[in-house]
C-alpha cells in the first residue's frame, strides 16, 4: 500500500519529516485496540483473516491472543465458512479482509451461512470503496452494499472515522447475529470529543443542521459532506448533513422527515449509486409517495482507475467539491465569485 516514493531518512536534510507510515498516524488504531479490549472481556471472541496483517488491524489481537487468531490464507470463501463454523460452536468470530473479496468472492457463503444461517459473525470489509485506490479496480469495492442489502437478517454498519469504528465494533460484538462493518482506510480526522461516544445500531445522526437541502452520507464521505456544507453557507445555502452509520436496518423515519422538511436530498457514497445508499433513499422516499428532488453521488456505472483515493473521489464525482457543486445546483443557487487572486501574499 505504501507510496514507493518514500525517502530514506539518512538522505535528507532540512525539511526532513515525511509521512512514513500512515498506519502509525491515523486514529484507525482505535478499533484494533477496541478489539483487544473486547477480546479480554469475552473469551469467545476470535479473529479470522485471509492472510492480511496490519491493514486489517487484527495484528494487535493476534499479539494479545495468538491462540485465538486464525489465518486461513488467501481464501475468502473459506474465511467466511470457517467463521460460520466457529460461530456455530458458540464463538464470536471477527473476520476482516478487503471488502471486495469479503463480499464478492465469498458472496454465497455470506448469504447462506451468515444471512440464512444467522451465524453470529462480525464481517469487517476493509478498504471499501476506493480506499485502496492504488490497487486498481480489482481491489475497489463499489458493489458490496448492493449485494448485502438484499440479504435478510444482516446488519450493515458503515462508521465514518476511527473512533466511530471502534464504537461500532463494540456494538457489533454485543449484537446477536451477523454484522457487516464497512470500513475504509481510516485517514479521516477523528474528533477527540467523539472518542467515547457509544454507537447505537440504527439511528441516523445529524452532523450539520440545515433547512434548504439534506446530504446523506456514510463512511469517508461524511467529512466530505460536512466540509461542503460549511462552504455552502457562504453561498447562502443551509445544508443538513445526515451521517448514516447503519445501512441496515435503515432509519427510514429520519430520511422521510428530511425529505419533507428540506425537499431536496443528495446521497453521497464511495459505492455504486446502484444498490447503495442512493438506491435505499430513493426507494424509501418513492414508497412513501413524497415528491422530492434527489441527486445521487457515487460510482457511476464505470470502473474508476488506479490512483490515490482522494483523486479517485474527485474523478468519480463524490468528493467535497462535487458535493458542494451539487448542493448549489439542486438549490439553483449561483456559486459565489471564486477567489481569483493568485498572487503570493
Amino acid at each position, binding site marked *: 500500500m505504501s*507510496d514507493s516514493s518514500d*525517502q530514506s*531518512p539518512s538522505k535528507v536534510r532540512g525539511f*526532513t519529516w*515525511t509521512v*512514513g507510515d500512515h498506519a502509525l*498516524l491515523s486514529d484507525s488504531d482505535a478499533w484494533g485496540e477496541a478489539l483487544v479490549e473486547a477480546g479480554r472481556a469475552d473469551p469467545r471472541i476470535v479473529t479470522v483473516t485471509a492472510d492480511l496483517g496490519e491493514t486489517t488491524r487484527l495484528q494487535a489481537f493476534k499479539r494479545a491472543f495468538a491462540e485465538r487468531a486464525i489465518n486461513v490464507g488467501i481464501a475468502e470463501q473459506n474465511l467466511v465458512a470457517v467463521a460460520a463454523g466457529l460461530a456455530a460452536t458458540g464463538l464470536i468470530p471477527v473476520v476482516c479482509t478487503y471488502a471486495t473479496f469479503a463480499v464478492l468472492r465469498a458472496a454465497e457463503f455470506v448469504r447462506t451461512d451468515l444471512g440464512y444461517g444467522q451465524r453470529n459473525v462480525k464481517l469487517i470489509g476493509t478498504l471499501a470503496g476506493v480506499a485502496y485506490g492504488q490497487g486498481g479496480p480489482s481491489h475497489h469495492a463499489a458493489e458490496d452494499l448492493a449485494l448485502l442489502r438484499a440479504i435478510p437478517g444482516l446488519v450493515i454498519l458503515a462508521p465514518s472515522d476511527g473512533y466511530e469504528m471502534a464504537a461500532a465494533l463494540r456494538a457489533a460484538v454485543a449484537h446477536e447475529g451477523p454484522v457487516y462493518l464497512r470500513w475504509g482506510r481510516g485517514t479521516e480526522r477523528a474528533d477527540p470529543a467523539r472518542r467515547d461516544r457509544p454507537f447505537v445500531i440504527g439511528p441516523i445522526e445529524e452532523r450539520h443542521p440545515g433547512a434548504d437541502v439534506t446530504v446523506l452520507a456514510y463512511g469517508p464521505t461524511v467529512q466530505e459532506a460536512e466540509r461542503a456544507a460549511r462552504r455552502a453557507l457562504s453561498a447562502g445555502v443551509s445544508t443538513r448533513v445526515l451521517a448514516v452509520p447503519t445501512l441496515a436496518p435503515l432509519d427510514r423515519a429520519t430520511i422521510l422527515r428530511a425529505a419533507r422538511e428540506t425537499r431536496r436530498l443528495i446521497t453521497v457514497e464511495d459505492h455504486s449509486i446502484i444498490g447503495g445508499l442512493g438506491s435505499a433513499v430513493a426507494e424509501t422516499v418513492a414508497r412513501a409517495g413524497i415528491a422530492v428532488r434527489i441527486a445521487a453521488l457515487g460510482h457511476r456505472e464505470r470502473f474508476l482507475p488506479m490512483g490515490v483515493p482522494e483523486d479517485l473521489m474527485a474523478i468519480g464525482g463524490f468528493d467535497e467539491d462535487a458535493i458542494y457543486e451539487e448542493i448549489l445546483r439542486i438549490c439553483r443557487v449561483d456559486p459565489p465569485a471564486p477567489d481569483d487572486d493568485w498572487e503570493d*501574499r
Partner: protein
Amino acid sequence: MSALVEDDATLRARVFLRAVLPLVRLLAERSTGPLSRARGAIELSLADGSLASTLRLDEGAAHVAHERCERADVRWVFRDARALNDFFIGRPSLPKITPWMGLASPRLSARALGLLLGLRVLDARASRRGAITHEEQRLRVRMLLALVTRAIAELHRCAWEPARALTKVDRERVFQWTVADTGDGAYLRVRPDRACAGTGAYAQREPFVHTVFRDVESAFAALTASASQMEGFRGGAVVTHGSPEYARKVSYLMQQVDQMLTGQ
C-alpha cells in the same frame, strides 16, 4: 500560462528571487536602529535581463516586486543564474553593483546587505549551531514556512513536474501548515494551472492536507532536522490531517526545495 524554465540554474534563481528574497520583509519588521529607516530601491537582476526583482525599503518596511525598476537607486547585476545562486547560497559570488558599487547610497546598500545576510538563518545547518531564543525560533519557523510554500508555488508556476504532480486532477487544493500555540502558519494553494502561497491560514476553503505543529519548538525541530521524524509524529509534536499520499508528496517537495537552496 506559466513560463517553462529551461535549465536548473535558472529555476533555482527564480526560487531565490521569488521565494527567498521576499522573506526580508519578516526580517525588516523586527529590526531597529538608524539603518532600519533607509529608503530606496535596489534592483537585482541577471545580466541578460531574463530575471529581475526589486527590493524596496521604506520607513522600516521591506517589499519585493518581481519586476525591473526604472529608477532604482542601486542595481545588483549577476553575471548569470549560477552566480546569483552562489550568492544566495553563501558561496563567493558578488554582483556588479552600480552606481559606484552602491557607495552612492551607503545607508541603503548597508541596509539591503544586512537583510540579505540575515536570510542565512534559513540554512538548517546554521540553525542547529548554538542556542537561540524562543522568539528567534519563532521567526525562523515563520520564514521557513513562508519560504517553502512560496518556493513550491514558484516551481509549480514554472511547470516543474514534481510540483505539478500535486495537481493531477482538476481540483483546487490547499496545503496548510500551522503552529498550534502561536497561530503562525503558511499555505500553498494549487490548481492544475495555478499556484500561490501565503502566510497565515487560507480562509476560503478548508485544507486538503493540514500539518499542525504542536508548538514553536516542534516546528523548529522538524523544519531544521534537529529531531527524529517519527519521534515527532509519535509524540504528537507534528500531526498531519488529510491525504497521506499528498502529505508525502509535499514533504518530498520540501526536501527538494531544501536541496535546491542549500546547493546539496
